Structure formats: C-alpha cells, structure tokens
C-alpha cells in the first residue's frame, strides 16, 4: 500500500505570513513577513525596486523569473522537510482497470492533502493514467529546464513478454509513480509548479492539456532556452566532474542490474531443481517403515525452503530492480540537463565573443548579453543546488534499497533455518520398539 501521508500540523493551515519568503534577506530561517509573498514564481515581480541581496552579499536581480526560483532553491537547501514543516502530501494508489471500445488501460488514484494557499481545497482526489504522468513530466522539463526532473518508470513494455495488466506489473508501476510524485512534492521549486498543481487538482486534465499552449503564453514564459547548436569549448570543472560522476554511476548501476538479474535467474533454476528434490524424499518415505516420518519431514522442509526462495526472488524482481532502473533513467535525464546547461553557456560565450570582435566602444554590456549571463548563472546555481539535493536523496534511497536487499536475504535464511530446526526433534525421535 502507498505510504500514508504524515498528519498535518494540528494548529490548522499555516497563515501566509508564516511561510518563508523567497526573497527575504535574512540568513536565518526566521523570515519576517515584510513583503506579501507570492508563490507563483513564474510571474515577474513588482518588487523589483527593493534592494535585495543574498546572504553572502551578492546583489540579487529580481527582474528575471529564474533568479527568484534559484534563490528559493538555495535558501531551502538545508530545510529539513520533516513532519513539522511539510505542507503537501501526495499519494498514488488504488489502480483500476478501464475497458473501453478503443483501448484498455489502468488509472491510479492520486490523493493530495495540503495547507498551501496555492490550492483552493485542503484535499483532492483525482484519477490519472500513465499518459498523464508522462505529460506532467514533459511539462516540468519544459517549464523548469534548469532543474532535475525525477524519472518515470519505463513507458513501453514489450507486449507478450510482460503482462501489463498483471498485479505485479501494476504494483511495481504504482510504486514508481508514487515515488515520482513524492520527489516532486519534496522539491522546493518543482512542487510549486503550475502544471503540477493542475495535475493534482483538475477534474478534467485533458481540457487543461488542450489549453496548454495558450496558458504558456499567458504566463509569459519568456524563459526560452535556445538549442541553437552553440558549441561549448570546455565544461567548467565542477560540471565536468558531475558529468563524469554520472557516467560512472550509471555504468555501475547497469552492472549491478545485470548481476541482480543473473542472481534471480540462478535462483529460479535452483528452485526448479529443489522442486524435484523434495518429493523424492517423500517417495522414499513411502517405501520405509521406521524412516517414513523422518523422510517425510525432510521433504516438507525442502518444500518450505522452496516457498521462501520464491518469495525472495519475487521481492528482488518487484522491489529491487525497478529502483535501480529508475536511477539509471534519472542519470540519463540529468546528463541531458547538463548538456542544456552547456548550451546556455555556449550561447553566452558566443555572443560575448561576437561583441568583443566588433570592438565597439560601449559604455556598458548590452542587455541581451546580460540576460545570457544571468541565465548561465541561474542555471548553474539551480543545477548545483539540485545536485546536492539529489546526492542526499540518492544516498538515502540506496541505503534503504540495499538494506532492504540484505533484509530480504536474512528473512529467507531465517525461514529456512526455522524449517530445518523444527525437524531435528522429529529426526531424533526414537520410535516405540516393535
């Protein structure tokens, strides 16, 4: 079952004044509600005249939307999102099959509980299908290109190999979709995304999807990242390091995936033999008199071990492998974000060079180039912040995943141990003398 959302703070919905202001100057967590906070970070602010700066003294440019989001991102980096500060809970559960004339598909229930002002109601319950999650992810990538968007479980399944309506497949997918939404929920910028809000709340998502283009222009999403084929000369050291890390990381995960699959395969082959092994003891027991019970006992024991092994293999297939694959997909999408960052930097550098070549006597740098520089800096800042968050989450996720793997193996051996220990008295039993 999906994890239950943590209980909301008993003091009721937080007042807007109590929410941390994204543009506050204070370096401490206590934010004075000096300004009316607006959660819609995509809209340009009217508070541009205020002289704001980062804790380290760097002046903040409030004219571009990207900077404010990155500011929020950086300020909330250390925010420990435990039960006390959390104000948004999302769960994916209750898969249902829908049979229509054209197609058959599964929908999942998406439940939201929140105190955020961006939501009209404190609770929502909608049904979504995989397509809708895919749409959301694409929208997030479009609208938040400087951020790392969590991965979705694989879209396509080879028909005939996997039954996409089987309980195991649906459950595995449900868990992955739940994780996807939870990761977005935990992200201080992505969780405030308009599309995310609509995804969680709209009764008719398809209508909203159609409006998509219109909405985009209304929001004034002028932050268009040009993929104009600019070539970056060299990646800055820290991003090069991230790129290298991701390369090696996804390689190692791929290896672990192959090893885990091989282990499962070997275990299943072992299981096949065990299933033939146990009953032979039983057959033998049928021939004997005094040894009948001990032999039956051994047969039953082997049978119990078979069951335990089956459970272990199932668990590994359903819980371990999908998470590994998710992280491989994650790495791939992150590498793409790195490339986009390179593009932005390349554009800036190209434009800078072009201007320098013109040798114009200029009093100041043209705004066009300023904007480019801005974009580069914001992108870098967002990416760095997201990477740190990602590293932390990754560490926790893998800690949990590997501990889980160890646990399942321990449980398997404990079940077998119990079975064998229980027949020792049976084997040692002295029958009554005939």
């Amino acid at each position, binding site marked *: 079952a999906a994890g239950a959302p943590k209980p909301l703070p008993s003091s009721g919905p937080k007042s807007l004044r109590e929410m941390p202001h994204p543009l506050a100057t204070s370096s401490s967590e206590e934010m004075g509600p000096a300004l009316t906070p607006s959660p819609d970070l995509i809209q340009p602010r009217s508070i541009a005249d205020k002289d704001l700066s980062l804790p380290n003294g760097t002046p903040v440019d409030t004219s571009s939307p990207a900077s404010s989001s990155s500011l929020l991102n950086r300020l909330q980096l250390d925010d420990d999102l435990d039960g006390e500060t959390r104000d948004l809970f999302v769960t994916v559960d209750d898969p249902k099959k829908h049979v229509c004339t054209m197609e058959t598909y599964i929908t999942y229930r998406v439940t939201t509980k929140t105190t955020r002002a961006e939501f009209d109601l404190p609770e929502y319950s909608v049904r979504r299908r995989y397509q809708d999650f895919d749409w959301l992810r694409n929208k997030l990538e479009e609208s938040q290109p400087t951020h790392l968007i969590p991965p979705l479980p694989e879209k396509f399944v080879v028909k005939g190999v996997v039954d996409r309506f089987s309980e195991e497949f649906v459950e595995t997918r449900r868990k992955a979709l739940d994780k996807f939404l939870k990761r977005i929920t935990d992200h201080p910028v992505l969780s405030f995304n308009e599309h995310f809000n609509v995804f969680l709340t709209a009764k008719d998502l398809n209508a909203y999807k159609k409006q998509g283009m219109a909405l985009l222009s209304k929001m004034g999403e002028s932050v268009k990242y040009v993929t104009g084929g600019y070539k970056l000369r060299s990646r800055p050291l820290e991003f090069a390091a991230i790129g290298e*890390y991701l390369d*090696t*990381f996804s390689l*190692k995960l791929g*290896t*672990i995936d192959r*090893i885990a699959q*091989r*282990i499962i395969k*070997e*275990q299943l*082959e*072992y299981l*096949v*033999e*065990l299933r*033939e*092994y146990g009953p*032979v*003891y039983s*057959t*033998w027991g049928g*021939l*004997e008199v*005094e*040894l009948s019970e*001990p*032999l039956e006992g*051994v047969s039953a*024991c082997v049978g119990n071990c078979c069951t335990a092994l089956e459970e272990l293999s199932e668990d590994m297939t359903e819980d371990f492998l999908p998470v590994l694959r998710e992280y491989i997909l994650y790495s791939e999408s992150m590498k793409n974000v790195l490339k986009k960052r390179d593009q932005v930097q390349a554009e800036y550098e190209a434009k800078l060079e072009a201007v320098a070549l013109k040798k114009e006597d200029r009093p100041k740098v043209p705004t066009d180039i300023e904007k480019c520089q801005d974009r580069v800096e914001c992108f870098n800042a967002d990416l760095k912040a997201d990477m740190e968050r990602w590293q932390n989450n990754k*560490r926790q996720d*893998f*800690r949990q995943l*590997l*501990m889980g793997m*160890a*646990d399942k*193996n*321990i449980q*398997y*051996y*404990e079940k*077998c*141990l119990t079975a*064998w*220990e229980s*027949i*020792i008295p049976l*084997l*040692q039993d002295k029958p009554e003398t005939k």
Partner: protein
Amino acid sequence: MDDCLAKKMEITVSEAEKRTGRNAMNMQETYTAYLIETRAVEAQSEGQCAPVDSLWRRYSEFELLRNYLSVTYPHIVVPPLPEKRADFVWHKLSADNMDPDFVERRRIGLENFLLRVASHPVLCQDKIFYSFLTQEGGWKEMVNETGFQLKADSRLKALNATFRVKNPDKRFTELKHYSDELQSVISHLLRVRARVADRLYGVYKVHGNYGRVFSEWSAIEKEMGDGLQSAGHHMDVYAASIDDILEEEEHYADQLKEYLFYAEALRAVCRKHELMQYDLEMAAQDLTSKKQQCEELATGTVRTFSLKGMTSKLFGQETPEQREAKIKVLEEQIQEGEEQLKTKNLEGRDFVRSAWADIERFKEQKNHDLKEALISYAVMQISMCKKGIQVWTNAKECFSKM
C-alpha cells in the same frame, strides 16, 4: 558384538599414494595404493602403545576380497565398496579417478568398508579377511586357492532362476521388490541432489560480482564509499563460503551412496534364495518324474505319453532283463535323489533362517545409519542458514553506515 574384530583391532586406511607399475598385459599403468594400518586394542588399554602394522592394497584387491566374501557367505548382506568410478558428479567435481578429492573420499569409503566387515558378527571371523589386513605377500594366491570362483553362481543361471522359480519365500519376494525400489529412489535422489548443488553453487558465486562492482562504485562516492566497500567484502565472503558447504555435503551423498550399493547386496541375497529354491524345485521335479518312470516300468502301464513308450510299442517290447536293469538304475537314482532333496531342503531352510537373521540386523543398521545421515544433513543446512544470516547481517550493517 563383543567378539567382533572391530573391538579388538583398530583399523584405518590412512593414506593413499599414486603408483605406477605394469599390468597383466605388461603395459604401464597408474593406480592408487591405499595404506591399511592395524593396531591391537587390548595392548593399548593396558597403557602400552601397541605397534602399528601396515600394508598397501589397491582397489582391485578390495574387490577381490569382497567377491570372495559374497560367494562364501551368500546369506549375508555383504557391505559394499565405495564406487569404482566417480558417479553423480556436478560440474565442480571431477569425474577423474585420479582427482585428489575423489581419492580422498574413496580412502574414507574403503576404511568404512573394512570397519563394516570387522564389526559384522560372521564376516569378522573370516581368515581371508584377517589375512587381507595383516598379510602383505601371497594374499592373492591364498584367496584363489580357496577356489571360491568355482562356487560363484553364473549370472545366467541366476536370471533363469528368477524367471522360473515357482514358490519363493514371500518375504524374499517383498525384499527383492523393496531393494529394487530403494535403488531407484536413491539414484534419483543422488542425481537431483547433484543438480541442486550445481545450481546453488551458481547462486553463491554470482554474488561475488557484487564485491567487485561495489568496490568500483565506492571509488566515486564520498560518504557512501566506506559502507559500499565493506559490504562488497562481505559479498566476497558469501560467494567463497559455498565451497566448504558443498564439500561437506559430499559426505552426505557418500552415505546415501553406501546404501544405494547396499541395496544391490540385499538383492544378491534374494537372488541366492531364488537360485536355491529353483534348484530345490528342479530336484523335486526330477525325483517325481523318475519315480513315475519307475512305476510305469514296473507295472507296465503307461500313464502318460512318453516317446519311449511309443517306440517300444512300435518297435517291440524290451526284454524283462532289460526292464529289470532299468528299474534298478532308476531305484538307485531315486534313492540318491531323495537324499539330495532332503539335504537341499535342509540347506534351503538354513539359508532362509540365517539370511533372514542377517537381514533383520541389516534393517536395524540401515534405519540407524540413515537417520544419522538425515540428522547430519539437517545440521549442515542449519549451519548454512546461520552463515547466510551472519553474512547478510554484516552486509546490512555496512549498508546502514552508507
């Protein structure tokens, strides 16, 4: 068994050695020789250290001994030898007779054989067996001089008896059936067990790959690195542990194999009974027909059709003198036959009685031994589970420190 040899004498097959020599066809061959060491027990208990006698024997000499015992004591379930060739192997085991592990297991099997014979109330008293243990030179000649090979029943004769015997003892028929089934089920068990061992080996060994990849991964991690690295070490330990586990399991397989071969020995006793019974039935039949012939000649009546009767009718009767002579011969034969039949009957009954006594002894031994084997197998499994829990618990702790 207070007076069995095992109580008086310590017997071990302590060493195995590769030898080269020339065989009967003067071709060079390589074989393994086994060192048999014996020491009197009595002297030891008095605080003295008795000297150890030793001599070398090869497998073929053990075979000769066993053949001799089987022929000389057909009513005894003679302990079997360990297998001649490595059978029921799984991929890691060698099928090569010269493989050191095989030689080692055979050494243990041969020792077990000698101990079984030495603790058998009847077999332990055999002189040839005693000489096998104590007399290095000339033993082979001694065995051949007993002429036991002549007493051996031909395979064909035994097969014939199996099909044609009319009234075997029901208990032996059931026992024969049981020994066939036992052979079949233990063979099946050993075959599957070998496959199970093979697969289990695969599962454990693949985990070793985790060790390497965790190590490589830890190199690019900061806080996670140590935990991963040390967990990887435990995966290596896990992968390596299967070798000892499966080696121990081979002893269990050997215990099962002994009883697989024991089933054949059991079968041999049943076959002997069938032979003796068939022999008895043939002798009785022969006696009956001779008596009938005699009667016919004496009375002149032909009760049953016989070619002799027809020819005599066609070609004329014999003279009374000829008839008298024939009757006399037949009467002698009948008397002989009756003596023989009496003897055979007695022998048959003796055989059944003594064989059944040994079979009962064997049954108890079998039940005891197999129970012990099953217990030791369960203990092995328990140990394997505990090791598994230990390793994964250690790994889990390493992961928790990530």
